[in-house]
């Protein structure tokens, strides 16, 4: 099978966000970059499927600037066969990213299945999987936390909230967006991380992909940090007094109960 995983590089979850001077983006100076957590599930699922199906290959794609190469190397260290960077600006909108990924996948061969994460934790847009599927003319199942693989079809469990699960069958080829629970991503061993340093990473440039600024439909601007919080009001007294006062606050001040 020809298996693809599309990943995004994002700031580490613990990053303190600082805004750029012009307010139209963040200061990337001290950022530690990681593979977005749900995208690690996408890589892992691709690798597990390859293990089940002899003669399969896993290709990992990521759209973004030069820095993205590090995340692609991490995917190679996890076990992917090849990795390709699509040279797009870090602030490309989801439509540009999806279009570039679709064109790249078309260039790299007929896919049997494409995995993405259910969303990337930087913009949390949850858009690229569906948009990619539209561009590829494939069905798409999102927020998937379990898959049974059949012959030309897969049965996916979709997390639709409240613990409710939709069981969706789809023909292949298809795009599947991974949710927590799908698998436990493996760690790359130190040895494989060193080995991955020597592996080639191909680059496809925006003009080869036919994606330029003219394809842009949105741009994020005027970033704001949340307003400083009022200090916390600590409720004092005996536990019984504290409890009574908090319930009073909920009922009278906030009128929530």
């Amino acid at each position: 099978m020809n298996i693809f995983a599309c990943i995004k590089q994002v700031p580490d979850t613990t990053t303190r966000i600082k805004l750029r001077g012009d307010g139209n983006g963040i200061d990337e100076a001290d950022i530690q970059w990681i593979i977005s957590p749900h995208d690690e599930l996408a890589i892992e699922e691709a690798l597990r499927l390859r293990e089940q199906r002899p003669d399969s290959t896993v290709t990992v794609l990521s759209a973004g600037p030069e820095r993205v190469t590090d995340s692609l190397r991490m995917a190679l260290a996890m076990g992917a066969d090849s990795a390709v960077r699509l040279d797009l600006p870090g602030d490309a909108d989801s439509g540009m990213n999806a279009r570039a990924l679709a064109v790249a996948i078309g260039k790299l061969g007929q896919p049997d299945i494409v995995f993405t994460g259910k969303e990337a934790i930087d913009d949390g847009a949850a858009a690229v999987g569906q948009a990619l599927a539209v561009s590829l003319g494939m069905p798409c199942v999102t927020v998937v936390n379990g898959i049974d693989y059949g012959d030309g079809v897969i049965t996916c469990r979709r997390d639709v909230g409240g613990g409710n699960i939709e069981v969706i069958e789809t023909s292949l080829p298809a795009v599947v967006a991974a949710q927590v629970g799908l698998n436990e991503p493996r760690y790359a061993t130190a040895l494989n991380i060193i080995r991955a340093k020597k592996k080639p990473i191909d680059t496809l440039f925006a003009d080869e992909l036919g994606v330029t600024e003219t394809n842009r439909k949105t741009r994020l601007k005027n970033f704001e940090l949340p307003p400083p919080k009022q200090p916390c009001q600590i409720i004092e007294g005996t536990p019984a007094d504290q409890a009574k006062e908090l319930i009073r606050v909920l009922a009278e001040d906030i009128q929530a109960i």
Partner: protein
Amino acid sequence: MKILIIAEHKNGLLSEATQELFGLPLGQAEVHAVVAGESVEPLAGPLGQLGAAKVHLIESPALASGTGESLGQALGQFIPQLAPDVVLAAHSAQGKDLAPRLAAALDAALATDCIQVSCDGDQVTARRPVYAGKATAEVEFTDDGLKVISVRPRTVKPPESDAARSASDASVAVEFPAQKTALKKIIAGGNERPDVTEASIIVTGGRSLGSAENFSVIENFADSIGAAVGSSRAAVDAGYRPYRDQVGQTGKVVSPQVYIACGVSGAIQHLAGMRTSKHIVAINTDPDAPIFQLADYGIVGDLFEVVPLLAEAAKNRSGS
């Protein structure tokens, strides 16, 4: 300006998040609603009362089980016929899946999970959280083509229904090409309490609960005020709660009116899921726990002592 609201419904009722969309400041825009399903005609009345001028009904047995694929096909055919300037959907489980499909199929601009949306004349403004709510950013639309915007539930209050208002309605015929996906079944989660993404109050417990059984302390208090039960990842990983209750970066993103964190330290990945809550309460033995930096109200104390007293005080209050 012409706006189309995609109305979501379940068991014959409009979802709360759909009703909220009518509460957005939409200026003088002409507001249409579209509702798709097996038999949805009875929803035209309530949509009119919320403020839709016209309701478009897409009825087909093919929509009974509402996969993203069939819904996307139906709306993808209808939207160009109406040619709105803006399509609004709730950023719910359904809307999250649908909005990007529509934007891609219609070559439209997309802004998901917005927490501010307004229309004034022919100007559309949208703002959304980025970096898990550590910042927000305005979405600039670079051309004046169609915009598909999904709005985070609980961003605004729904307007009062006005019985004096009504909408004209029209049915829309669409075709369904062969489906590649099929909904086989729905496995109900068996959660008797409200879901964390829908609740207006959430009581969350963390690792400090120590066992699944001890979560009854949290459940009793939640039940006394009609709240949902949330969980930190540490408590999910320890097997005290199912994943569906997890709040945070890799769990649910919630925005309730009140979020009550009991024995939760306030790790940055947890805050990522609840920082847009309107009011935050923290109960923790450690006065230096990071959760107090985000909280509006705090009790420094042992949750096993305080939380049962909260349940009691809530019951006494509602009983009086």
